[in-house]
């Protein structure tokens, strides 16, 4: 039993927690200010003035559009592959106990537990050994591999909460495996899958470390940003792109949170 109702947080704790949260959010907020600055040569603060001009300039940039298109395609296809593989894996691991069950969960988590550079360089050297030319598919191969874990985590947590007797009841009432899957299992795990898929999408859309090794000459949006970070050439356009990227990733995360908030606590655990 807790008697938290009466206790109040000491001031220092409140201040430290507040400062910590501010530390986590102010840098991102700063991006939104810089997207509208009139300064285009340096990162001057405070901005000398505000303008909407750079939104229009960015809108008319074909290279940004190409990068965005490639990123969206990669993220969509990788997410779909990850959703299929992750769900299959989660269903197998949570329904039955079998030899090598622990190994399978470890195998799923490994691509995200080891530093991304290892996954990246391993894939790259494998592509060169197997003589596979770089294309959108080499990027997808890498992305889908580390996206599986996100879908898997969400699906496993939901399977654990779904009672096995529901499936038995459905079978007893005469439904076959496919009907049970369609009418009993899918509605139960649907939101968790959707949430996992959205997080996988956000993860893939944002990934850069593995992508630098698997992309060859193509550039996804993060690769485009990385080039600008290393050699800044068009700061105002980069500012706008950064803002758009924040918006594009925040929306699926918030949606995933609302889909899984009733006690799952899974959205995001073990990115």
């Amino acid at each position, binding site marked *: 039993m*807790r*008697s938290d109702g009466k*206790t109040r*947080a*000491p001031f220092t*704790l409140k201040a*430290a*927690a507040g400062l*910590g*949260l501010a530390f*986590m*959010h102010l*840098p*991102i907020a*700063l991006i939104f200010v*810089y997207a509208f600055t009139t300064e285009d040569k340096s*990162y*001057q603060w405070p901005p000398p003035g505000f303008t909407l001009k750079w939104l229009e300039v960015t809108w008319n940039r074909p290279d940004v559009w190409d990068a965005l298109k490639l990123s969206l395609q990669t993220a969509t296809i990788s997410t779909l592959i990850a959703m*299929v*593989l992750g769900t299959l*894996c989660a269903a*197998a691991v949570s329904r039955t106990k*079998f030899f090598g069950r622990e190994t*399978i969960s470890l*195998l799923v988590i*490994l*691509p995200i*537990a*080891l*530093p991304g*550079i*290892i996954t990246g*360089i*391993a*894939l790259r*050297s*494998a592509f060169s050994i197997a003589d596979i030319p770089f294309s959108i598919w080499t990027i997808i*191969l890498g992305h889908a591999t580390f996206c*599986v874990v996100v879908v898997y985590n969400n699906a496993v947590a939901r399977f654990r909460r779904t009672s096995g007797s529901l499936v038995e009841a459905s*079978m007893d009432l*005469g439904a*076959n495996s*496919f009907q049970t899957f369609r009418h009993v299992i899918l509605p139960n795990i649907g939101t968790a899958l959707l949430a996992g898929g959205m997080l996988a999408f956000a*993860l893939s859309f*944002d990934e*850069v*470390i593995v992508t630098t090794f698997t992309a060859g000459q193509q550039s996804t949006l*993060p690769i485009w*940003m*990385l080039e600008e970070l290393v050699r800044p050439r068009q700061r105002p356009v980069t500012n706008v792109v*950064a803002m758009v*990227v*924040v918006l594009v990733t*925040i929306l699926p995360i*918030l949606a995933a*949170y609302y889909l899984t908030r009733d006690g799952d606590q899974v*959205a*995001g*655990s073990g*990115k």
Partner: protein
Amino acid sequence: MTVPSPVNATNQSSAVLPGQGGWTGSLSDKFWRNPKLLLILMLTPPALWLGIIYLGSLFALLAQSFFSIDEFSGMVQYELTLKTYGELFRPANLDIIIRTVSMAAIVTVGAACVAFPIAYFAARYARGKWKALFYIGVMLPLWSSYLVKIYAWKLILAKEGILNWIFAKLHLTWLLEAWLAIPIIGGYSLSVSYTGTFLVFLYVWLPFMVLPVQAALERVPGSYLEASGDLGATPSQTFRHVIFPLALPGIVAGSIFTFSLTLGDYIIPQIIGSSRLFIGQAVYAQQGTAGNIPLAAAFTVVPIVIMGFYLWGAKRMGAFDAI
């Protein structure tokens, strides 16, 4: 060879429901009689994908670390040797490893210090709406774009940026300059110093520390703290002897992320920091411009081995229950 059809089986014992029509029905009956078949069907695609694409490339890479490169021709020699691993112990390469591991350790300690108050407040005092707000407040930075976060710090740490402006407004520029004058951690400006690198690492990995620590603290019953107080402990004694030991598995769990992610990162030190290399950058340079895949592969073994020991130690401390 004929497979006994489900229909025949039902004819023999009337207690069982009749077999189902259509290929979906008979397939479904097969799954029911033979659960292993379904299991194998479900496991094969993910196991093949991860086993071939991921493990296959990983082993192919590790195998290359046992080859060496001919110093004159620059060609890879396909003979098994430990020579490449010997190269890791050259002073220049050893420096890189020590630099990276120390940075990872300092970032981990820093992240634990900053994360603890946030996690403690969220676990013990935040209720209802505030709890959700804290959760989203940690989740959003965790999932926002990695590059955008680094970019934001490039804006902040720039000479003409907001941090120098704040120091100037507070008439504290002398303090910043004194800090930058300290050898090793200082430098020409914040964006090319180890202090800058540390700040960005701390910022980018902080949410990974908050979540497991909060999960560990959620499990500490409030009555423990009251009991400790009733028995005459001061708040700092309660912290040292009750809260901290119970939160430790969570901190260790978080440190797995902060430590491992810092060990393998090559983008942050490249953009914010001095020109001295970290392990990730060394791997990148060796496989790219230098074309020395064996040495690059040997370098990737370093974080794998360190994390292996780290995970083994963490498991003994019960950190995996807190993830």
